[in-house]
Each structure stands twice: as C-alpha cells, then as structure tokens.
C-alpha cells in the first residue's frame, strides 16, 4: 500500500523534473531588461514601447555596429507598484542582465527605482514623468523623457503670459498623475500672476460632473485646468458644452489620445493640452523611425511614446559598448556609462544627462483638438485670441 503511494509520488516527481528540464537555456549575448505595462489599462502604450525597443535591438544586431549581440528580456509591470516590484526583482534575479529601461506609470517607477538602486541595476526611465523619480539622485537612475514639472511650468507660463488668463479653476482626478500636474500648473500660473479661484478633486470613473461644473460656471473663471486623463477630461468637456461654458479648457499630456476625441465628440473642438515631446514627424529621426517600424510589421502600433523606448534601447546599448571598451561590462560600469551619455543622437534630438539623471533636452508642445484630431498648436487652424479659441 505504502509502496504504491510512494511509487506514485516518485512518478509524479519525475514527471515534474522532465517538465522543468526543458526550461532553462543559456546564451552568451548581452541581456537588457525592458519593464513596462504589457497588461492592464496602459497595455497598448506599453506594447508600443516594447515593440519599438525590440526594433532598436534588432537593428543594432543586424547592423553589427556593436561588438556584442543584444537580447531583450521583457517583464510586465502591470502599471501598478506591487506588480512592478516583483517584475523588477525578476530582472534583478537574472544575473545576465546588465541594464534595464522602461516604465510608463510613475507609480510603478517610483516603487521600483529604489530597488534597482539597492541592487546596483542601472534603470533608464523611458516614459514615466513624475519629478520625484530622479529625486534620489542615484547613479543608477536616469530618465530620457522630460519630467512633468517642466511641462507644467511651460503650460502655466503660456496660459498666463501668452494667452492673458487671469482667473483659473483647477480640477484634478486625485490620481498621482493628475494631482501632480494640477498642482505644478497652479504654482506656475500663480508665479506668473494668475489667481486660482477654486480647486476641486474628482474621482476616476466618476461620470456626473454637472454639479461641479455648474458651481464653477457660477464662479465664471477665464480658464479651467484639469489634471488627469482622457475619459474624465472628455466627460468634463461634454458637460461643459451642455452647460454652454465656453471658457478655455486646458489639460496635461495624459488626455492626448483618440479616446478623448471619440468620447467628447463634437464637444472636443478647442480643447488644449500640453504634451511632452513633439509630433514624431517633426522630430529629427521621426520619419526614419516611422518607416522602419512599419517595415518591422509589428502587430500593434508604436503608440504615442514608442520612439522614446527606441531611443532608450539605443542609449543603453551604446553605454554597454562604451563600458565594454573601458573594461568589464558590469551593472555598475554600465550605470556610469549611461549617465555619461553626451550629445547622443536620438530620434528626439541630441541627448545628454545632467547630474540628477534628467535629459537636458526638454521638449514641450501645446496641442489643440480640431475636427476630432490633436493638432500641434503651431500648426493649428484655430488659436487662442483674447481668452477664447477662434479660427485663424
């Protein structure tokens, strides 16, 4: 009886062993980690990032401009801190990985950055824009995209100085992202002499803002600034239209997506949002990137921030190469090399990192919604004239 029992278990164990056997494989190429939201709300963006990164690696390996071959190890941060932390640990645990780049959600990045630092793993933050990410001034932590505070300072200045806004009503969606943007915009606006007449929080997923807007309408501000993402922005814009409110409505980069235009429908026109970066086609390497991405025949589009991942990958690979020339390729030597990047030709332009780890190249573009599309303000057919959006 007992024999049989043990026999079965032994069988079971062997089965498992066999299965596990066909797991591990070893490779001599240099491994680079990518961490980003491949599932959850930001999956589309995350996959765009991943594809673009892979594109960069393929090109590099094909061109043979580097001594080493590179391999991308992809993990999913789910866009939320807890998942991100275990994902980060997965990368750290893999001894072959010498550097990591990625992240779109600031929450995730804020959670992982200390861990990467703790384990001496260089992380090049690709598209997460929370200012505090580089606060620690860790040598391992660098960011290629411009931080949110720059965007918001620019936004505040433009609104007040260029468009002459004096009174502003603030709304934020109480998320990390929205709140930070709203606060920074408010500071910038105040600095330039505008007054904030009211500040309200809404919650993501809330649908009925009529009460809030009715209240704000009564305050009659010259502009409303909303810190948050597309859905709520669109609802606000719609319900503003329902209430015949035609004051300026400004927001952050989070609302720049087709979702906004789709939901806001006819009401979308005239929405103004400040974005980090520049339209791809107006960037130095933009056209080329578009072409090669199309050629690579990925299933998914590269989405808004793909090219940042492409650049990150190239920065990291170049850094690895440099580290290799100067000695052993270790996580720490790569970290130093990344930080030392100077005038590196990227799609977005010449990239150099400052001592905090921020990219010295700052790109901010205001966009305006026209006919259900986002158009860079400098190309738009509508513009702000005495505090109203009008046709040129």
């Amino acid at each position, binding site marked *: *009886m*007992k024999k*049989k*029992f*043990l026999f*079965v*278990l032994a*069988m*079971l*164990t062997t*089965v*498992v*062993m066999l*299965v*596990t056997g*066909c*797991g591990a494989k070893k490779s001599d190429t240099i491994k680079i980690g990518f961490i980003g939201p*491949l*599932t*959850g709300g930001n*999956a589309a963006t995350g996959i765009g990032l991943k594809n673009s990164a892979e594109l960069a690696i393929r090109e590099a390996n094909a061109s043979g401009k580097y001594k080493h071959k590179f391999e991308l190890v992809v993990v*999913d941060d*789910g866009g*939320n*801190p*807890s*998942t991100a*932390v*275990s994902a980060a*640990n*997965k990368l*750290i*645990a893999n001894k072959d990985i010498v550097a990591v780049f990625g992240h779109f959600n600031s*929450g995730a990045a*804020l*959670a992982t950055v*200390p*861990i990467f630092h*703790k*384990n001496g793993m260089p992380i090049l933050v690709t598209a997460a824009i929370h200012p*505090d990410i580089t606060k*620690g001034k860790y040598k391992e932590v660098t960011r290629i995209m411009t931080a949110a505070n720059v965007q918001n300072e620019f936004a505040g200045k433009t609104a007040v100085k260029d468009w002459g806004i004096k009174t502003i009503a603030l709304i934020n969606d*109480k*998320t*990390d992202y*929205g*709140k*930070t943007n709203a606060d920074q915009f408010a500071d910038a606006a105040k600095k330039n002499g505008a007054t904030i007449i009211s500040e309200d*929080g809404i919650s993501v997923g809330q649908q009925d803002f009529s009460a809030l807007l009715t209240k704000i309408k009564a305050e009659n501000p010259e502009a409303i600034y909303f810190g948050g993402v597309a859905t709520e922005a669109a609802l606000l814009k719609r319900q503003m239209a329902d209430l015949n409110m035609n004051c300026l409505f400004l927001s952050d980069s989070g609302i720049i997506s087709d979702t906004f235009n789709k939901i806001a429908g006819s009401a979308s026109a005239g929405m103004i949002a400040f974005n980090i970066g520049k339209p791809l086609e107006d960037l130095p390497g933009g056209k080329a990137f578009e072409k090669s991405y199309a050629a690579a025949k990925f299933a998914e589009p590269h989405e808004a921030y793909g090219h940042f991942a492409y650049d990150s990958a190239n920065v990291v690979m170049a850094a690895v190469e440099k580290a290799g020339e100067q000695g052993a390729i270790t996580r720490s030597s790569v970290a130093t090399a990344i930080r030392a990047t100077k005038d590196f030709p990227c799609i977005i332009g010449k990239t150099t990192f400052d001592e905090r780890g921020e990219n010295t190249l700052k790109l901010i573009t205001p966009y305006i919604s026209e006919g259900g599309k986002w158009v860079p303000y400098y190309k738009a057919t509508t513009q702000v004239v005495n505090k109203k959006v009008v046709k040129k």
Partner: protein
Amino acid sequence: MIKILLTEIIGYILFLFFVYVEEPIAVVAVMAAFVFAVLFLKKKCGEFVKSLEKTYADNLGQVGIIAVVLALTMPFALMGDAYWLQILNFSMLYAIMALGLNFMTGRAGMICLGYAAFMAIGAYTVGILTLKLGVSFWLALPLAGLLASVFGVILGLPALRVKGHYLALVTIAFGLIVQQLLLNLESITGGTNGLINIPSPHLMGMDMGANLNLSFMSMSYQANFYYLCLIILAITTILIYRFSNSLFGLALNAMREDQLAAQCYGMNITRYKLLAFAVGAFFGGISGGLYAAMINFIAPENFGYSMSILVISMIILGGLDSIPGAIIGAFFLTIFPEKFRAFEDYRVMFYGIIIVLCLLFMREGLLPFKHRIFKPGMPKGEN
C-alpha cells in the same frame, strides 16, 4: 513521524519544482499530473491516505515543526532568487491576512468585504511611523496591528446592530471610506502619491533591505523578509489555532450559527463580535505593516476593493473556517497566477470564477473544516 517527514519532504520537492517550472504549458502539465496523482491515491489506496490524514491530525505539533524546518531551507533551495522569494513573501502576507479574515468571517460569521482597509491601516501606520517619525519598525509593527484592531472595533460597532447583507454593505463602505480618506488626507498620507522610500527594518544593525552575501551564495534581500514573514506566519497560525480551539472559539462558532440562540444561552454578543473584529483586523494590520516595510512604497490604490475580494476568494477556495485551508488558498491564489503572467488580464476574472465555482460545487473548499472529535469524559480536540 517518518510518514509525516517523508510526505512533507516529497511535498517540499514538488513545490520547488512547481516554482521552477516556467512555461504555462508545463505548469498545466504539472497541475494535471498532481490532480491525477491525488485522485489516483484517493481511489487506489484511500485508507492509506485516510490513515495519513489521521497521523497528521494527531501530531499537529510535529507536522508544524517539520514544515517550518523545511521552510527555513527554502531560500537556499531557490538560490536566493529575488523574484521567487518575493512571490513567497507575498503568499505568506496573504496567508496571514487570510487567517485573520477567516477567523472573522469563517469562524465568527462576521462577513467583511473591506478587509483591505485593515491592511492599509497597518501599512500606513508602519509607513508614517518609520518614515516620518523615525520609529523603529519593530515597535511600529505591533502598533500597526493594534491600530488596525482599534479600527476593527470601530467597524464592529455598526456591526453590532446589523447582520448578513447589511454588514456586507457596511464593510464595503468602510473599505471605500478608508481608501478615500487615505486619498484626501494628503498632509498625513501623502495622498495619491502615497509614501515613497519607507525605510526597511534593521535587525541588530543589519539592514534587512540589503542583499545578504553569504560565503557560498549571495541572496536577495528578499530572503530577510522571507524569514520575517515565515516567523510571523507561524505565530499567526498558532495563535489562530488556539483561539479557534478554545471554548472562546466554540462560542464564536455558536454565534455564527445563531446569534439569537447564542444570546439566549448567555453569550454577550457585543463582546464576542467586537473581539472577533479586533482579532481579524489585527492580522490584517500586521500583514499591511510587513508589506510597507517590504515594498518600501505604499499608495491607496494598493488597498482597494479588489484586494478585499482577493482575500475573500482565498478563504472560500481553502474552505471557510479551515486554518490549513486559508493558508493553502493564499499560496495557491498568489503563486498560480504568477505562472500565467501572460494571461495577467484574466487574473481578476479567474478570482471571480474561483468564487463562483467553489460556492456552487465545492462549498467546503479544498481543505474542509474538520469538526472536533470529543471522547465523552476526556476531551481531545483537533481541527
């Protein structure tokens, strides 16, 4: 004794392999093999399995000790792999919560759909105390538990007046209110940004957040937390076991079965209800505190309604009021989805399906609650 040792070692090895398997297909294969094996054993040598169960039940002490000893070697077996150690740590955190909630809901019948709130309270207590006031983690952790208990009692107060469905609503509301407050009380909780860079605990001058470099292998700092969680889980299990098997636990059972009758037989419902809430909440707080110290970053979004549901589904899967069930449920529902990261989007759906299927077809859960057997005259309890 030998039987226990042998079977537990085999279980340990199986578990290790399960951890090492990566491809989803392989995982499925292993699961299938396992299920098959179990069915086969039940069928072919049922009485042996029964006798085994009995040996386990009769020598709980030994079982526990051996299990702990084996568990102690786990980090080495895993080569100090940061990722898997962390998954195990999470499993243990959840197990602690599941035990707490199980005591509240399974044993005392006080349904709680806002359990994540207690975790949040614990996490923020530790976060704020250690980060802003520089209190030692070792002091902050028990405080976290106690504060959670206090909130447990506060939540218990309306629970004195309401039952069943109403209580469910109250607890949901409680969970949401706590989360909203964490969002809105920025000055204390850091609002939506949460608390960043919570210091990791120090033990005898050693930073638990630093990787361990042993002479023969270097281990991720997760190993430190592994041992911490293991110890606390062990303590939790013992405590809950004793609570449950005391006459006090029996009284709670009676209250679950029929409050009014229990009252008519001299139970001061108020006292028992509040105690049940306090105990359940305490462990929620503890695991929250551990979480904060381990992840070093907490934000309200981590302690939402879905977290409460997750813990509920763990105890339902394991079997309401079953202590081993709660632990197994927690481990399974934490590790299994990790194997299917590719299907991350189906995770929540998976929890939902687990709940529905268990309640429809396996109301007792994986490891059903075992009734105590009394020998009239001389008592001998087992659970």
